[in-house]
């Protein structure tokens, strides 16, 4: 009996998952005898694998565009953040990534306009991107658009996505004609931002197709 198994539980589970296409009582018994300390986990896991094997994959039409669901968009963002953290180690915690750099913040006026032109957009739209006044999921789910922004801004994709995921900001150095302190307004969706930025129909069509 292996009262204190030298093999970590995860490795035992992997080995069990690999042992048979579908777990059977014989294999379960063999493993629980070999690793009695993990008997409960193995049995529970065997049931999970059995149920998993009974659930078939959903068959559907091929994905005909690059749009992704909000959940996948969040996962991509997480992936990019994890890459960033691993590549920059030792670095501050993940939460610091979105605030590391606003890719538009240091652009002078000429560069800002040039990036707007490169995107086939205008300054109003680019300001929305800079100040993150667009719902993050509606931007980051458009990978083609994020790639284009990364190319035009000359910044890595993970930084652009991390920027869009961060909370909205009030741009510093701007002048406000108001008696009250400026506050952040509600965020627009990507489509609303495109429609409400004074862009031509051709520009709108181009951006929404990216």
């Amino acid at each position, binding site marked *: 009996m292996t009262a204190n198994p030298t093999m970590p539980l995860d490795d035992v589970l*992997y080995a069990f998952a690999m042992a048979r296409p579908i777990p059977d009582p014989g294999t379960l018994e063999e493993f629980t005898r070999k690793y009695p300390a993990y008997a409960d986990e193995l049995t*529970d896991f065997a049931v999970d694998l059995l*149920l998993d094997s009974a*659930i078939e994959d*959903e*068959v559907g039409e091929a994905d005909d565009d690059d749009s992704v669901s909000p959940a*996948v968009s969040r*996962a*991509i963002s997480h992936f990019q953040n994890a*890459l960033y953290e691993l590549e920059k180690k030792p670095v501050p915690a993940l939460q610091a990534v979105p605030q590391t750099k606003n890719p538009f913040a240091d652009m002078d006026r000429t560069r800002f306009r040039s990036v707007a032109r490169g995107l086939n957009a205008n300054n109003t739209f680019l300001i929305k991107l800079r100040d993150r006044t667009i719902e993050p999921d509606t931007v980051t789910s458009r990978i083609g658009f994020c790639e284009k922004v990364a190319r035009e801004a000359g910044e890595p994709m993970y930084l652009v996505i991390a920027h869009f995921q961060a909370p909205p900001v009030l741009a510093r150095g701007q002048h406000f004609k108001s008696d009250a302190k400026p506050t952040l307004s509600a965020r627009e969706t990507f489509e609303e931002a495109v429609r409400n930025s004074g862009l031509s129909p051709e520009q709108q069509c181009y951006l929404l197709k990216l």
Partner: protein
Amino acid sequence: MPRALNKMTKGGVGYKRPPEIEASIDMALGQELEEQLRRAKIRDPADPGYMPSECLVHLVREARLSGDKRAVDRLVIPLLSRCERRLKRTIPDTWSDAQGLRDEVLQTFCELLARVGSNQDATALDLFECKFNKGLATLRYRRIRKENNRGKLFRDIGREVDEDGHPIDPNDTLGRLSRAAQTAANQEDFIHLAEMLEAVKKLPPAQRKAVELCCLQGYAPGSEDPNEVTAATICGVSGTAIRKNLRKAAEKLKAR
């Protein structure tokens, strides 16, 4: 010839991909990125161009190892979309905080992908190159085990009645199957479940689907609330039709 896997069993033997996956990877490695992407988006395994998910995992790993960032950024999207679709099937909305669970499993998978090519251990991905669905099942299990709670909310199938008010499962055949699928298991449950699932596979498709959704995933057969996701809304039929299929399935499973 695809790169060999690194993970070793306790006996010092390396994991091996099934031959058909090796062949699929061989073919995909010789294709352009655009063609790989086209194939990665196909969702029907019966389509001749379909790329197995095991193969897609390999391509993303290779792209990471070779520093091909463009390929990583593009291939990771269909890969994560496949993960999400599978997780939606295996962590149904009937579970508490199903979306949160799915997000966490996806994130763990992303962290494994990010480790490739770094000095951190990414050999857990080897399982995904051999049996993709089992790899995801393992991550899901580890996540659920952390809370020592499977978190599933199942409707008591034994209380379901047909339109005449008669119980659809008078012998508790489906009820026992449902309980074995939702509670912490013992070996007796496992044996019962293994036998029952073999019998469920032989049911006609509509009955099998009804059992899968109601007994294994915990969906209600139907509901008066039009916004509730039920087996009926998923199959696009009435709750009565689902209950009829459950009743027929219960009779067949009892008689097996």
